[in-house]
């Protein structure tokens, strides 16, 4: 056997490849199909967002937060607004809080639709992706009704939201929710319970709970590994204390705890939970102001603060240092996809290239969050 010389191949899974996760690059060292090492190379979408934050005022940075994670714009806006409000001690009116929860959860549904659809499309099932996008188009229409654009909303302001809900919004939203609930079941029949899909993802790269915590995974990735941690329940912000909802946690019912299928099913279950939360918000929506009285020129007191929210892709944290002037001294953004990307070199050893694709799809990476 020593006469047979085998070499490992170095393959570049380059920044241009037909995947829907953005510009990611991996340098794989493989022995045939089995991967020995997978080193990520990031920075292809770096736009210097944190540096830009030091040049413009607090109000002006809000559109930039849209572009941290463009599929979950509302949640990114919310995280930033929350940080500045906490630093300044601004109290947001109750109606604005409920509107924020409503659009935040709606955006969570939209983001998870893309996540599960993209995972299916990576594995070769192109139709469920298009079906997911078809449902998401209605959500885009609802968002357009509220704030005027379909993707990078720039809807929240420091102290509240920028527009109040228009006429006919609640009716449109209720119609959508009634239409969407049976569609989740249809999507499950098409993709989630399909034997081929289950074979491709069940038992593939299980991430144990200690490793997930050690690598600072957050969001659905962490909960799939069996860790009970959801910021909406355990470190509540806004009006989540008053809302009732379940938090899906992985129990290993579809394979092993923390495998790709578990992460996928957690997202499907979270979509169903979000529908429940939105219905509660519609019922409990109070009257009131849409924005608190915030000075046009914001000068927060000097100090630092770290505030975190539960974005669809994990924990979105903003660390803000203010020196008392109009512009931040330093703004650091902590995103969920960055830590999810950092776990890949550790867990990808020994799996096949096809499994790596399933892993990347199930971790729900998105390049702008990694590079900011």
């Amino acid at each position, binding site marked *: 056997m020593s006469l047979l010389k085998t070499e490992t*191949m170095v393959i570049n899974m380059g920044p241009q490849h037909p995947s829907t996760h953005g510009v990611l690059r991996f340098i794989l060292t493989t022995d045939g199909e089995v991967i020995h090492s997978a080193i990520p190379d990031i920075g292809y979408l770096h736009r210097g967002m944190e540096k830009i934050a030091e040049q413009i005022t607090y109000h002006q940075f809000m559109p930039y937060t849209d572009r941290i994670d463009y599929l979950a714009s509302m949640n990114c806006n919310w995280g930033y607004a929350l940080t500045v409000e906490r630093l300044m001690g601004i109290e947001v009116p109750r109606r604005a809080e409920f509107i924020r929860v409503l659009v935040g959860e709606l955006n969570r549904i939209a983001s998870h639709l893309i996540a599960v659809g993209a995972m299916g499309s990576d594995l*070769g099932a*192109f139709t469920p992706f298009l079906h997911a996008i078809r449902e998401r188009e209605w959500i885009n229409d609802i968002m357009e009704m509220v704030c005027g654009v379909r993707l990078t909303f720039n809807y929240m302001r420091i102290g509240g939201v920028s527009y109040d809900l228009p006429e006919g919004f609640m009716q449109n939203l209720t119609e959508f929710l009634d239409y969407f609930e049976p569609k989740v079941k249809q999507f499950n029949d098409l993709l989630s319970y399909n034997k081929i899909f289950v074979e491709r993802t069940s038992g593939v790269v299980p991430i144990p709970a200690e490793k997930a915590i050690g690598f600072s995974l957050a969001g659905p990735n962490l909960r799939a590994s069996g860790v009970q941690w959801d910021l909406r329940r355990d470190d509540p912000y806004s009006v989540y204390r008053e809302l009732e909802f379940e938090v899906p946690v992985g129990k290993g019912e579809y394979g092993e705890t923390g495998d790709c299928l578990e992460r996928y099913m957690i997202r499907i279950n979270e979509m169903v939970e979000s529908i429940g939360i939105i219905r509660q918000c519609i019922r409990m929506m109070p009257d009131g102001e849409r924005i608190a009285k915030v000075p046009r020129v914001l000068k927060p007191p000097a100090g630092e603060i770290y505030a975190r929210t539960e974005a669809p892709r994990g924990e979105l944290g903003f660390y803000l240092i203010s020196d008392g002037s109009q512009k931040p001294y330093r703004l650091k953004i902590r995103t969920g996809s960055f830590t999810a990307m950092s776990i890949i070199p550790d867990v990808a050893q020994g799996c*096949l290239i096809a499994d790596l694709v399933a892993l990347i799809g199930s971790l729900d990476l998105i390049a702008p969050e990694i590079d900011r």
Partner: protein
Amino acid sequence: MKEFADIIRNALPVFKSIPDALYYGIWMLLVAGALLGVVSVIAGITSWVERRVAGRMMSRFGPNRVGPQGSLQWIADGIKCLLKEDLIPALADKPLFRLAPYIVFAGMFATWVVFPFSKKIIVADLNIGILYVLAVSSLVVIGILMAGWASNNKWSLLGAMRAVAQIVSYEVPSVLAVLSVVLVSGTLSMQGIVEHQRGGSGVLRWNIFHDPFLFIAFFVFFIAQIAEGNRTPFDLPEAESELVAGYSTEYSGMRFVMFYFAEWANLFVIGAVSSTLFFGGWEGPFIAGIHWFILKSCFFVFLLMWIRWTLPRLRVDQLMTLSWKYLTPFAFVCLVGAAAWILFLPDRYFMGMLK
């Protein structure tokens, strides 16, 4: 087609003065050219149908701007590909690189010779019909391996090797299932197999209803043929949305289109062979003829597209497991079972209930 050649020769005495070899040689070239035209048009139209079907299954239209309902889209795409630059990588093995797409196309094209379109329309009724089809369609393996090797690209080589493993493994259950049909029909010739299914008011004598073993053999054969044709759920070698385009990565322009021409025309081949072997060929209720053959083949083409746009793809080791652990044992069981059936219940059809 030889009868037509003889009829024309007898009718026009001027042709009798041409020596035999020259006359039949020119006739063969003409028929081959006509068949090439037919195959190309079928491949182009299949590409248009595939895009429309895929679109409708995804709640969108397919191409509907070029020509009525987009039916000239494939001509526009073909012209565009002809006008593209012919890129050959610098370190590629040039003769092999140039030859590979044509071998893949030839391997698929040569199977059209024995298709029984109707009682009279068949290019050559070889008495080893179905054996010839299985043998010649394996030529694509050589073409794919040449394409992968000559591209001088690690991705292509990976894709090509996967493709070879896949096609060679799925030949086994495919051939065994065909053998069951040959046992029951008693002949290898394609027209002979169709003749064996004649009568019974056009439907009851079909091979698929002959006995339960042939019923299972049809599904084994169909799944194996999907894998031979590199279609989802078995399209690891080519449409890897994981990596790039597999063995055809380095190809551009018309050479690239050749691979896909072969794939689309292969859809019709799978339909034709399945309908001949199991569904009665050109036989059908009321009037038998070429229309039943075309209809059945088109139904199978639609079925293949339907399967493609629903299912995700299998991983390479799952693919191998499916072939060796699931399909091959079932194919053996079908072969032995069909042999036992015709031994104990000869001259019966429709699950042994009718004589």
